[in-house]
């Protein structure tokens, strides 16, 4: 369905022999995509996981609408959730915006954004990654 150049030619294969037009792209458009480990994603078979919002590393902090952590009591920010969210609740929240039971709907977006910003090493990340996963 598609061909492969000889590997031995390497990136030198991209130096042309005659003058062609090279499009350098807009300053903002990206030309490099890096493959990230999908390690946790396929652990999606273990969908029964939980995400504390926020994680224990940020215990007590409130969550701003953009998902960042702010000092407790900050106006307009959402308080920490009393219980971790289950995988399925998070999936529904992220896909359809459905608010999990017992969660204040006006804060749901802040929680969703917090979860979107999770990274490896943070509590809940493997669960979040698994929800991104096919299946």
């Amino acid at each position, binding site marked *: 369905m598609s061909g492969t150049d000889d590997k031995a030619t390497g990136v030198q294969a991209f130096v042309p022999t005659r003058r062609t037009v090279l499009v350098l792209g807009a300053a903002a458009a990206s030309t490099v995509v890096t*493959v990230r480990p999908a390690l946790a994603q*396929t652990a999606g078979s*273990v969908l*029964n996981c939980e995400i504390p919002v926020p994680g224990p590393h940020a215990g007590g902090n409130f969550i701003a609408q953009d998902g960042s952590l702010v000092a407790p009591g900050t106006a307009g920010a959402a308080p920490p959730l009393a219980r971790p969210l289950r995988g399925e609740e998070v999936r529904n929240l992220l896909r359809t915006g459905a608010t999990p039971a017992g969660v204040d709907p006006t804060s749901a977006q802040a929680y969703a954004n917090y979860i979107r910003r999770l990274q490896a090493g943070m509590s809940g990340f493997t*669960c979040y990654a698994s929800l991104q996963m*096919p*299946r």
Partner: protein
Amino acid sequence: MRHRLSLQIGPVAFRIGSAWKAPLDALARLYASYPAPADGLADFTVRLEPEKPWRRFFRPSVAIQGDYILPDAAPLSLAHGLLAAEMGMNLQMALGQKRYLLLHAATVEKDGRALIMTGESGAGKSTLAALLGERGWRLMGDEFALLDMDNGKLLPFPRAISLKNGAIRVMEAQVPAARFGPRLTGTPKGEIRHLIPNAHAIERMQEAAIPALILFPRFGEAAAVRGVGAAEVFMRLTQASTNYVALGRRGFDALTRLVSTLPALAIDYPDTDTALGLVEDFRQELAA
């Protein structure tokens, strides 16, 4: 551990220990026709433990533990202990398997040529694999495809097929009741019932096959077929692999070889009969 069981599935042996008897009894029934590991050893260890010491008897809560663990995994109720054991084995594969390039995909084989099906949630690859397995194809696995990086072949990993919700009824209409595990209701993934692969699939679970076609099925749309470019296939498969990055150069070489030699198609299908028909057409085209 108080209760223990060893299982050999394809090239991989598991040792499962449990604080309770029931989950292992259910597991032993599901895998009764599989051979025990010939060497008595295990590639991976799974443990089903009480979440807290007192949760062995009081509101039993099964934590999934083992050689490799997922910190965010939530415990299951004892009634879902069989599911916990299955999840524990999946987890060991997803996090610990480094001998093969592991793809989150279903695979079936006919005439030595294997079909890899991978796709998003609800795409129906498990159901398609289960159905094909009843119609002359050999089921190699509904969950993980194992690619041997040395020779480019696929190894079978024919675990019990985890059927969910609607797929359970589809298969119950086609397969004798004796090949089903218990009906698990109210699990975090809805209703689940395991289907034991047929004898053919289990007898040949050490037999590799040459990959011939990659399919990205999608259920619920009007029937359509389109070719998928190799670079896109590459990207999608890296995201469907738990160990691609960890395998380094070997993984890169194996996956680029796979995507540049195999055709890949995205298929939309409104019902399973349409999908099965398309797959049969592809097979005949490839054989021609």
